[in-house]
């Protein structure tokens, strides 16, 4: 499909990035003067952007050719390396823009209430708007280098917001960990971009994609190399195996941050990157295979870890890791399934935001405590929150008619339909994941809202104010009805087809879709039942039991991923650093100092003569020049 130039309102697409960027700068620089009104500006900005995005959406929808390029200016022009600042408006980017500004608006409004008594509220909204700007840049950029700026911008916002309560050492460490893990991914993204330039002389989507597909000339090897490097970047940003351990720790940030950045939008950027690079992945079976393997591993990993957490936000974080695993699995299945991955991403954006914001309301009520072992019986005192949490809960475990059912079911179906042994393995993994999801989410639901009240003494839970409950209810409604909008009539899939290719044709199914749906529901109910037996019918201890099974311990300790990183990467890194510092001081520098001391007889003597020695340096330099002239003279006359 040809790309057309932006016209009319579309030419103003840069405002989507500029407005929140300027707003962020103003909020951060205005100082204490702005403390009284900063949050209002901060919350108004995404709402305005959402309105603008809707207008843009209808403008795009109204035209036949929906791949639009808006060129702004030449950014880095060096020889044949020509990179512009330009935006691409197309179905894929529009879906993300609407998600970011829509869900973003609701979460910003919620945050006005959530952060009402926080002395750092202005700073919070400054960072939050910075995030929106960077995220929109990420999804709107028309080339990989500009995408990288947004990519790192969201990473920066994430770093700042995870470390928002920077006086807590755990928050500061979590922020750093997130940034470092993302940097490991950035190495992949950087190398991918270098490969593009080295092989195609371009970093723009249009310029790169022209070398792939039916008319492309790029070899499979190049496609695989670029695809795998992009995947490394995607794994860092999206908390996928083996770079997943930062995401649960990121829950140190305020809860609206967890909802917007570490659930609904930023962490799905990896999925966006792969879907955006569909032409590259379509040409490389090898890269796609690695994507689905990582997706399958991560989705199970997240589920297993989610089962052992007592911190409600960490349960939700592991569920995010797991759900993004589903998305990776979908986009890795390749042509025809991308759109399903994006659908699950949208549905997840709604239901996970609902869950997190509900969790935030609970934290608000429980004096910022988040240990589920000290919750219990909250359904009667927080009815609205309970209701919205349930909507998110039913959606994530995939109970029809909630959105998660439709989208997750499609992914499981597509995995089986891949065919062959690998199809069975992936399908069964996805199915098992659905059961485990039901188990750990039910556990969280029961521990939080049911059973006896295990509250600490100073806690007096109450429902959150309207400014918090209303946005959550809207999101809860979206988790409910979202599924229909997304699946029926194939609206979104059809809409996305110019960006990621047409959706899967109804073809041969490994397992009949109806049968599979029934099996899935049965598996989910089994997970539910298991959790009900363990956590619904028995008393939940208010402190974490000790002497538990190996599996529980492994789950609590995130299957030893942190321990592994610490033992294999961090410790040897520290030894290496210490060794090198010693070597540099004693070896390299010592040799030089020894030489200097030797020349001067001793360092003491050196000290005594130094001042006179150096003061005559100007003279010695002059002497050098004279010597030079003398030598020249000699050479000339010889």
């Amino acid at each position, binding site marked *: 499909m040809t790309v057309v130039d932006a016209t009319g309102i579309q030419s103003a697409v840069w405002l989507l990035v500029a407005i929140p960027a300027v707003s962020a700068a103003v909020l951060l620089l205005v100082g204490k003067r702005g403390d009284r009104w900063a949050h209002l500006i901060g919350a108004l900005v995404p709402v305005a952007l959402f309105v603008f995005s809707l207008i843009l959406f209808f403008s795009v929808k109204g035209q036949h050719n929906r791949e639009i390029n808006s060129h702004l*200016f*030449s*950014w*880095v022009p*060096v*020889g*044949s*390396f020509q990179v512009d600042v330009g935006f691409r408006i197309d179905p894929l980017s529009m879906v993300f823009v609407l998600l970011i500004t829509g869900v973003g608006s609701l979460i910003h409004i919620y945050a006005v209430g959530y952060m009402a008594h926080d002395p750092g509220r202005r700073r919070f909204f400054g960072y939050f708007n910075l995030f929106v700007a960077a995220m929109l840049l990420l999804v709107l950029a028309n080339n990989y*280098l500009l995408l990288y*700026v947004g990519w*790192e911008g969201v990473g*920066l916002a994430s*770093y700042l917001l995870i*470390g928002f309560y*920077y*006086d*807590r050492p755990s*928050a*500061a*460490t979590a*922020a*750093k960990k997130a*940034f*470092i893990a993302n*940097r*490991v991914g*950035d190495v992949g993204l*950087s*190398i991918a971009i*270098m*490969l593009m*330039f*080295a092989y*195609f*002389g*371009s970093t*723009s989507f249009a*310029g790169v994609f*022209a*070398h792939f597909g039916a008319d492309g*000339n790029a070899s499979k090897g*190049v496609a695989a190399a670029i695809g795998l490097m992009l995947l490394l970047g995607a794994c860092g940003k999206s908390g996928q195996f083996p770079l997943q351990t930062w995401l649960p720790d990121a829950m140190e940030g305020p809860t609206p941050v967890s909802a917007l950045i570490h659930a609904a939008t930023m962490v799905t950027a990896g999925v966006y990157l792969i879907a955006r690079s569909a032409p590259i992945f379509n040409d490389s079976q090898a890269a796609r295979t690695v994507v689905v393997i990582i997706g399958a591993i991560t989705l199970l990993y997240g589920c297993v870890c989610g089962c052992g957490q007592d911190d409600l936000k960490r349960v939700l974080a592991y569920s995010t890791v797991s759900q993004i695993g589903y998305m990776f699995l979908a986009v890795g299945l390749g042509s025809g399934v991308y759109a399903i991955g994006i659908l699950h991403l949208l549905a997840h954006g709604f239901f996970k935001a609902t869950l997190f914001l509900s969790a935030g309301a609970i934290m608000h009520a429980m004096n910022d405590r988040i240990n589920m072992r000290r919750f219990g019986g909250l359904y009667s005192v927080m009815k609205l929150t309970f209701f919205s949490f349930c909507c998110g809960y039913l959606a994530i475990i995939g109970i029809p008619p909630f959105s998660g059912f439709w989208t997750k079911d499609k992914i499981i179906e597509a995995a089986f339909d891949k065919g062959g042994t690998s199809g069975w393995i992936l399908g069964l993994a996805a199915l098992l994941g659905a059961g485990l999801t039901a188990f750990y989410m039910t556990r969280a639901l029961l521990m939080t809202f049911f059973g006896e009240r295990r509250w600490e003494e100073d806690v007096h839970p109450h429902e959150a104010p309207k400014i918090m409950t209303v946005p959550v209810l809207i999101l809860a409604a979206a988790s409910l009805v979202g599924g229909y909008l997304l699946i029926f009539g194939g609206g979104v899939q059809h809409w996305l087809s110019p960006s990621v290719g047409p959706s899967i044709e109804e073809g041969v199914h490994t397992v009949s879709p109806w049968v599979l749906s029934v099996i899935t529901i049965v598996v989910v109910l089994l997970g539910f039942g298991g959790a009900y037996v363990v956590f619904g019918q028995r008393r939940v201890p208010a402190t974490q039991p000790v002497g538990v099974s190996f599996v529980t311990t492994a789950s609590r300790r995130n299957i030893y991923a942190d321990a592994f990183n610490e033992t294999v990467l961090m410790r040897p890194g520290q030894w290496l*650093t210490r060794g*090198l*510092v010693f070597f*540099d001081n004693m070896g390299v520098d010592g040799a*030089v*100092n020894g030489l*200097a001391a030797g020349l001067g007889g001793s360092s003491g003597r*050196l*000290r005594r003569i130094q001042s006179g020695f*150096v003061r005559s*340096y*100007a003279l010695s*330099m002059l002497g*050098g*020049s004279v010597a*030079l002239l003398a030598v020249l003279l000699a*050479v*000339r006359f010889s």
Partner: protein
Amino acid sequence: MSNYSLFGLVLVPLVGSLIVFAIPRANGLLAKQVALFFSLATLVYTVVLAIKFDDKGPRFQDTMSWTWVRSFGVHIAFGVDGIALVLVLMAVILVPTVILASWNSFDSREDAEEDSDVGRSVPTFFGLILLLEFFMVGVFTATDVFLFYVFFEAMLVPMYFIIGSFGGPRRQYAAMKFFLYSLVGGLLMLASVIGLYVSSGKSTFAFSELIGSVPSGTTQKLLFLGFFIAFAIKAPLVPFHTWLPDAGAEAPAGGAALLVGVLDKVGTFGFLRYCLPLFPGASRYFAPTILILSVVGILYAAFLAIGQRDMKRLVAYTSVAHFGFIGLGIFAFTTQGGTGAVLYMVNHGLSTGVLFIVVGLLVARGKSRQVSDYGGAAKVVPLLSGAFLLAGLSALALPGMSTFISEFLVLVGTFTRHKGLAVLATTGIILAALYVLILYQRTMQGTMNEKVRKFRDLNVRESFAVAPLIALIVFLGVYPKPITDMINPAVKYTLHDIHQTDPTPKYGTAAGGIK
């Protein structure tokens, strides 16, 4: 036809420094004001020259040449290409910043060492800064190799006194080490300058006439090594680097900013301006070794930076890593690598300049360079910590900042020729994140150290010193074109001098000329 505008530019800071030196010691404020005035005048003057510079014009512009020693073809000759011009710009932007940031540094005698026999005279310090500026502008704009050598050596004198008289507790040691290293480099260069004159057979030191005049072979290789080692000590590349952490740590913050930001750039500038065009064959011969040294330097110095406990030593080691990147870009022999390296020099000057200044402001409050003496300061000094973070982010080359563009250009320019080395160098970005964020966490975040409770945040003067640099770093990250347009033609000339062209993309650019 001579154009005296560059001669005038060189004179402004020289005259300024003489005036400041003449101001009596008791009248420190006047000395500062005069110094600031002359540094700003130099800045305005340079900006005018930069605006008048024609990207499509001849290689060297605003040229002038007076015969100095007729019998040996020594000239007082000035001229700028795009590379020299942007470096001069960077230098003259840093000087007023340093003056503002050092405004009160030497007012009280309290911080002076008890046993110090060296007076900390305010006019002397600011006079030295302007004198240094004179030499810095001279060294970049000289187009006569002999004149360049004179400036190259003379530069040491004011810096020696800035470190030795105004530095920290171990300043004598650091200044001595700085001096000895430079002396060795200077002697090697002196020998090579003589050799260049002899072997070229041109009877002149005019740079343009010497290009391509040295016959290839052993002589060229030896001369190359003489220049190269002198520049590699200055830059400094691993393993010639150990003087820098001492000098950078002991120098006053403003001096360190100029030392690492500008003076050391003369080394990398020398690679590009002198080593490559004068000794093309030798440059190509030694390039693989230098590229490997550069990559080793990037990773090695980054690990060392992570392991430092002294903040200023840490910043100095980060610079050694950054010089590795610059070396990589220069000896990759591609347009992107070359332009990236020059842009890197500019950005690194701004970025390390602001980092040294911010660290200096913190050290001035805490009276300690040890990281462990700080902690949780962000709560007390939000502006200072914000500036600290931004300076750190620019040091780790965050996309969106100018440093990212230069670092990426260097990497991509290297990648097209040497994939393995570029990939290794790219892993350096992880280490960069580590040293910056660990430093930030230990000083600004976490539990508050009692000592920081009484810190005062940035005042207006300090903000004015720091904010323009940060603004410039962000601006050039968004719109680097004015600078790259100046650099590009000069880099093309240089690549032409060494007979190198960019590798073409394997699959060509897509049909239809899609960019």
